[in-house]
């Protein structure tokens, strides 16, 4: 196969980033980014789910009948999300409580299905696993950037630790979903300018 592991890895993080280039996973990008801790756990959850569902789908790809392909993919993704949910509940109860319904909603994240369809379906398990991990990391990095701005201005804290001076007035808009639209829009604009120029 022509694509090396390194190029696949880097493409997903930058040139083909799922959030800023493919504009996938926007729902959760708006929902969980008002504090860094939740965003980080969500990112790790997505990396885990994308990596393992890509691996499984790729390993089974020669046996999956074409006409029930999508159903099988959703089944595999859902299985990993439920595993994640159980593990969080058992070992990290406070984080599971904070994330609430968002863990279950990883199932609906289009990045996982997107990687399964676009990559795992036609590549080997190892490459698919790397592709899944890097797509997850690409997603997490952008979300962390959004969360950094939102938590800093919305609460005056980073990872729950106060960094802004006492007199700082939090920007309530930053806590609410609309601010994520503005910040994400700005990040996409800034990040894509050099990519578009090159073309």
């Amino acid at each position, binding site marked *: 196969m022509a694509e090396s592991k390194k190029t696949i890895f880097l493409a997903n993080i930058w040139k083909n980033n799922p959030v800023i280039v493919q504009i996938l996973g926007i729902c959760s990008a708006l929902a969980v980014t008002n504090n860094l801790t939740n965003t980080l756990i969500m990112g790790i959850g997505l990396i885990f789910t994308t990596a393992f569902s890509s691996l499984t789908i790729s390993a089974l790809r020669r046996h999956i009948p074409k006409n029930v392909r999508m159903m*099988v993919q959703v*089944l595999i993704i859902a299985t990993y999300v439920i595993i994640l949910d159980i593990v969080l*509940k*058992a070992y990290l109860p406070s984080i599971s409580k904070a994330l609430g*319904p968002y863990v279950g909603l990883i199932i609906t994240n289009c990045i996982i299905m997107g990687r399964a369809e676009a990559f795992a379906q036609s590549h080997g398990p190892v490459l698919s696993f790397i592709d899944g991990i890097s797509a997850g990391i690409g997603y997490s990095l952008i979300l962390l950037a959004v969360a950094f701005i939102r938590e800093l201005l919305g609460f005056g804290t980073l990872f729950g630790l106060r960094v802004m001076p006492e007199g700082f007035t939090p920007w*309530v808009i930053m806590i609410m979903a609309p601010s994520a639209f503005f910040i994400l829009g700005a990040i996409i604009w800034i990040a894509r300018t050099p990519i578009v120029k090159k073309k």
Partner: protein
Amino acid sequence: MNEKLYSVLFAFILTTVFVLCLAGINALASGTIERNERLEFQRSLIYVFELSDGADFPSNEEVQELYSSRIKEVEGEQTVYVVEKDGTREFAFTVQSAGLWGTITALVAVDESGSRITGIDFVSHSETPGLGGRIDEESFKEQFRGELVSSDSSARVAVVSGQDTASRDDSKVDAITGATRTSESIQALLNKAVNTVFPLVLEVVD
């Protein structure tokens, strides 16, 4: 036909395998999850009764120790948790009420006569994180400590904005900015606690 049969069989077998895997993992973890949840609930009880003096976050052992030594559980139509403090009793019980996105389950503690709320904690809710989700914050929950219960059955403790709420005797607490609906839900939840659940509690403990 063969291909169709293969698809159906494949989907069937794969589903069975995955479901079995999940059932196994669930069975392995359910003990831990149950223990966590029970501990979390006991921690809430200790918080609403203010039993851990000093320590904001009592360790798991302290929680179990305090729970078994101080709190008495009375089963009935409504499970009531009773604590004796300086000769008087305090009751805690769970109340469920509709929130903005889903049910809010709260643990409410009141004094013997039901005239004052002594503590509140939210066991589970699905309010918007950062907005309604802030009902979990100490600064919100602490407002209810010792708050007088008003005789107005539609606002036992009013959750208001832009008013002076500092006094413990005005039956008013501050709402959360940007979370009007959640704040209204909390007021409704306390009305339910005092109007419907508290009479049941008295039946159970007497």
